[in-house]
């Protein structure tokens, strides 16, 4: 069985979801790359913010 940490699983999830969002939600290759990177940044940013919020609630 493949065992991934929560962070690694979220990293892979963000990568693949961003690729699909970028390709399907924009028309030109340049816009697709930009939107894919934007989605990836939002996923990872949200992940880090949520992590720190949970840490703050716990302490």
């Amino acid at each position, binding site marked *: *069985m*493949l*065992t*991934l940490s*929560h962070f690694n*699983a979220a990293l*892979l*999830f963000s*990568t*693949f*979801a961003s*690729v*699909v*969002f970028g*390709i*399907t939600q924009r*028309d*030109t290759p340049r816009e697709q790359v930009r939107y894919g990177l934007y989605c990836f940044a939002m996923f990872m940013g949200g992940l880090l913010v949520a992590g720190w919020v949970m840490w703050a609630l716990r302490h």
Partner: protein
Amino acid sequence: MVSSPAGKDTIAAKQPATPIATTMSVVAPAVAWLIPGAGHLIQKRWIRGLLLMASVVTMFVLGLLMDGRVYRPNGGDILDILGFIGDLGAGGMYIVSRAMDLGHVVVAHATADYGTKFIIVAGLLNFIAVADAYHIAIGKKP
């Protein structure tokens, strides 16, 4: 702001008022559902098709490797029904995994839960790819 008539003409020329129903507009979504990314490949969108295929297939396989659960048709809990609908989006991979009895597990640890979500999201992402293949087929998207 008033848009110029010339601008309207340009937009009208780019996007037909009614979708053009062609054989491709039926075949592309069907093939895209069955084989992720194939709807783009048969329309000669090679890079997009390969990237979609790699993303959806890898997510689904990773989900199975993480001991994720593949939902069966069910009429029970609403989350189980939604899980089945999500899984169904993976098309051919869902059919194969069911035929091989993969993902028939009890989710007993965190990694398996991540795996279950990976499988569902792979299916949902493929639904988006199917819609995109259709939009390309009717000329709504380049």
